[in-house]
């Protein structure tokens, strides 16, 4: 490029008279770019493919082990999912609940941990964090965009499980009016509405794990360390939740209310339990968001 061209390109847009886009437009652009960064990254795409494979494999496995109609499925699932296993042979919709229950133990938390643990620590590790802040992206703004992207990611992963499980369930098992856990039968449409509500409930649960992940991520520049820390936390919470002697602390654990989504599969719906669950998720989101914010806006960026 010749210096004459340079002079022209500089003259077109003098530094003083920069045309600024609207605030909303600019923030949306940043958010969309962040979404692209997460969803177009090959590692993450692979994760989503793996997540989608699980309901497929679970569906095929259950179909093979329970060839005839009736109560063929061996209820091998943990805890409350046993009830779903028995229902599956009668209705493919139940594969959604089985898949969600099984994947909640480890797979979905891992998927959320990978992206949330990577969110700030990954940028710090690459050194891109200092350039984003020098751009300037703004610390609080960057954190908001990061968290919204984590929520979008968690929602996508949870819905992939639901949708794939539903499609596989419908393809492999009979479908019709849905008999709920309380014994009442509702129409297929109402049953699908419950699937949607359960999925949304778990999206909020995963968003809470995402907030914890975001907070942990602001404390390190090693993404893998942050991811591991989140998983240790999740597994520890699940273990403690299983020990009867710790029953008094159980309601305060981040994972305690996950499986309570089965309240949505009874008539009348146990709204008190659901409210407790949502309150617990909300408290975790607010608390860890504040930790993340306090840490991220006050600390020196040394990476």
């Amino acid at each position, binding site marked *: 490029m010749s210096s004459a061209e340079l002079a022209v390109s500089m003259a077109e847009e003098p530094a003083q008279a*920069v045309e*600024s886009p609207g605030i909303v437009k600019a923030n949306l652009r940043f958010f969309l770019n962040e979404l692209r*960064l997460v969803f177009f990254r090959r590692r993450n795409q692979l994760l989503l493919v793996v997540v989608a494979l699980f309901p497929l494999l679970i569906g095929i496995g259950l179909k093979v082990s329970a060839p005839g109609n009736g109560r063929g499925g061996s209820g091998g699932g943990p805890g409350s999912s046993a009830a779903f296993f028995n229902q599956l042979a009668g209705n493919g919709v139940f594969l959604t609940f089985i898949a969600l229950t099984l994947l909640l133990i480890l797979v979905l938390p891992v998927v959320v941990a990978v992206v949330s643990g990577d969110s700030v620590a990954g940028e710090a590790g690459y050194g891109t964090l200092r350039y*984003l802040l020098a751009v*300037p992206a703004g610390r609080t703004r960057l954190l908001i965009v990061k968290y919204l992207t984590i929520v979008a990611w968690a929602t996508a992963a949870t819905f992939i499980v639901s949708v794939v499980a539903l499609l596989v369930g419908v393809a492999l098992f009979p479908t019709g009016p849905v008999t709920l856990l309380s014994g009442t039968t509702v129409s297929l449409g109402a049953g699908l509405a419950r699937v949607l509500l359960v999925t949304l409930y778990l999206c909020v649960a995963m968003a809470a794990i995402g907030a914890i992940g975001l907070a942990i991520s602001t404390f390190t520049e090693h993404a893998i360390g942050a991811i591991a820390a989140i998983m240790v936390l999740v597994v520890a919470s699940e273990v403690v939740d299983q020990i009867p002697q710790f029953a008094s602390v159980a309601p305060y654990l981040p994972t305690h209310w996950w499986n309570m989504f089965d309240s949505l599969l009874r008539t009348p719906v146990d709204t008190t339990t659901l409210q407790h669950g949502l309150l617990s998720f909300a408290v975790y989101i607010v608390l860890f968001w504040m930790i993340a914010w306090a840490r991220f806006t006050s600390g020196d960026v040394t990476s």
Partner: protein
Amino acid sequence: MTELAITSSALTKRFRGGQVAVDHIDLAVPQGSVYGFLGPNGSGKTTTIRMLLGLAYPTSGSAELLGMPMPDQAVNVLSRVGSLVEGPAFYPYLSGWDNLARYDAADRTASPRTAKQRIGSALDRVGLTAAAKKRYRHYSLGMKQRLAIASGLLRPRDLIILDEPTNGLDPQGTREVRALVRQIAADGITVFVSSHLLAEVEQVCSHVGVMRTGQLVFQGSLPELRRTGAARITVRTPDVVAAAEVFDKLGLAEPAKEENSITAELGEAVPEHVCAELVHAGVAVRGLAVESPSLEDLFVGLTGEGFDVER
């Protein structure tokens, strides 16, 4: 008085361990200058730059960029400042183009409408147009460095801060960076460039600041730095003792006698006058030379010889 692009007053950074990385420095970088920020590795240059950019918070003291206090006004002023801090950093799995688009998208004042054109011309300016679609991970070190400079040029800037822009580059790459700095400065943009090598910046700088263990030991224009070095006169002669008497009479400071020569600080004296006086006194002058210390010598004098980590 000229406007200042960067100022700081008693800017200080003490790390949690108690170590003082930057110790009460008062920077004054004139607008339109190319300011070489010199000092050995570990002398506090990068910490200073981090504070100027609002990445690190000062323990005490204050700094202003383009007249705006940092870090309070970081969000408002930094879009007018391009920077390269401690080497390039990009997403290895994105192409050069996508990497620049990423940083551009993060800038709330950047117009998305002109993004394509701006990214294109920034890449063009550093000669990376052909590699725009290549993943960053496959870039050579020089290309990475140039991409970092391109990201500093995404917007029209009033100030460019380059921290060790030639670190790890081969002579060819160093020359390219130097040419880029000249081009940027020719557009009237203030350039603040740090380096541990004086030779690297003395050809492009108009002003220098020299850091030593966290303190700014010199700041001024290049000619001012030169003037701090005293020129010395060297006379080759067998009559050292007689010559020393003449030197003494002329009031030349710090004479140093050797077997067949004598040197002293020239000070205000005129060399030809000294020569005439020597001849007049019957000293056999075999050779006479006046030497000014090189900038390199001055720099080393200010910062100490290598390897003396003083902390």
